């Protein structure tokens, strides 16, 4: 076989293989090279069910992911990595939501109105814990949902 042709075909093979590998790891595997994100912190009273790598979304658009979850002073400190092109006002509100009824937990950030932005390493002050669906259902089962929401004393269980 012609040596040039052989070299050429091997080159094509390696290129095709590398292209597939790159596609798999960068595009599908979300492999990030270099730092295109910055980190901010958020403290929640509970994160029940939130996992690392969960998406962080604003208005339904994914802008980052949960880097790490730690316990700190009896509260959950969540470290979020946010894309460099996204700026968050320092009165933004972070809340833990569920996608669908039985879906995974994610963090939703609603924008604030302040002129100051959160710097890398900063903290989101306003957070809301997740809606506890199990507690909600159990309250619903006892028929005291309305009173609970209005802040009155729950009816005694019958």
């Amino acid at each position, binding site marked *: 076989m012609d040596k040039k042709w*052989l070299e050429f075909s*091997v080159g094509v*093979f390696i290129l095709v293989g590398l292209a*597939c590998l790159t596609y*798999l790891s960068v595009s599908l*595997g979300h492999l990030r090279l270099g730092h295109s994100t910055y980190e901010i912190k958020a403290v929640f009273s509970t994160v029940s069910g939130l996992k690392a790598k969960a998406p962080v979304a604003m208005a339904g658009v994914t802008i980052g992911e949960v880097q790490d979850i730690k316990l700190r002073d009896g509260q959950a400190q969540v470290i979020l990595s946010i894309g460099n092109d996204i700026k968050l006002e320092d009165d933004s509100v972070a809340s833990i939501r569920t996608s669908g009824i039985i879906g995974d937990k994610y963090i939703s950030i609603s924008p604030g109105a302040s002129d100051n932005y959160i710097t890398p390493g900063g903290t989101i002050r306003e957070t809301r814990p997740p809606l506890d669906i199990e507690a909600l259902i159990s309250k619903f089962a006892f028929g005291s949902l309305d009173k609970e929401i209005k802040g009155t004393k729950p009816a005694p269980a019958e």
Partner: protein
Amino acid sequence: MVQLIRSLGAYGMREILSVGRMGIFFLYTMRGMFVAPGKFWPVVKHIEFIGTKSIFVIGFTAAFSGMVLGLQGYYTLSKFASEGLLGSAVALTLIRELGPVLTALMVSGRAGSAITAEIGIMRIEEQIDALDCMAIDPYAYMITPRFIACLIALPLLTAFCDVVGIFGGYAIGVDLLGVSAGAFWDGVYSSVVWKDVYMGIIKSAVFSVLIIWICTYKGFYSGVDEGSFGPEQVSRATTDAVVISSISILVSDYIITSIML
């Protein structure tokens, strides 16, 4: 009775000897990477044989496995009205398991058997002894380039297999069965993480070492145990090589998955 025990002992000793010989064979092959320079051209030639010529058969295997995954996945998922998960099902199955395993099995059948036969014939025609006589290290000359080539080619083929398979699943799921294209790709993108891809690469690297180690070893020592060097020994070595490497691929796949998952 004594005869029986003796033959059992001889069998055990032969097996233990061959395990040790495989280890020494591996060490010599590794040493071959450093002794004789100028292995670039043989490596390219063997990548051509192991990789480039396998690309069609791997493409076919991948396309049809992806398509059948799309079909099976669709009919299972449609019972739960969650056809949208088809993308994740196809992509995860291919990247984690089927891609590396199918590629390794096809390569061991297509290239591994040929390598064993080639080296086995060199052995029975005393070409290996001739190399020894000329003071050419047969490991560095014959085995090491194949080792390197297989280590390069198999992960690349696996990546190719994964991508083709996902598109095969897409063709059946989206074009034929009417899953929404957006849901399919969102499933693929959101469920596959870097760890899955990484695990697939590790697996295919381990498989490539196993395939090429077993196949070259079996060829290199074909007929040595029997003490006779004929076509029969080469055919037996080839069969052994394919069977043993296929089994060790499947066994090591389980072990790697249980360690890494």
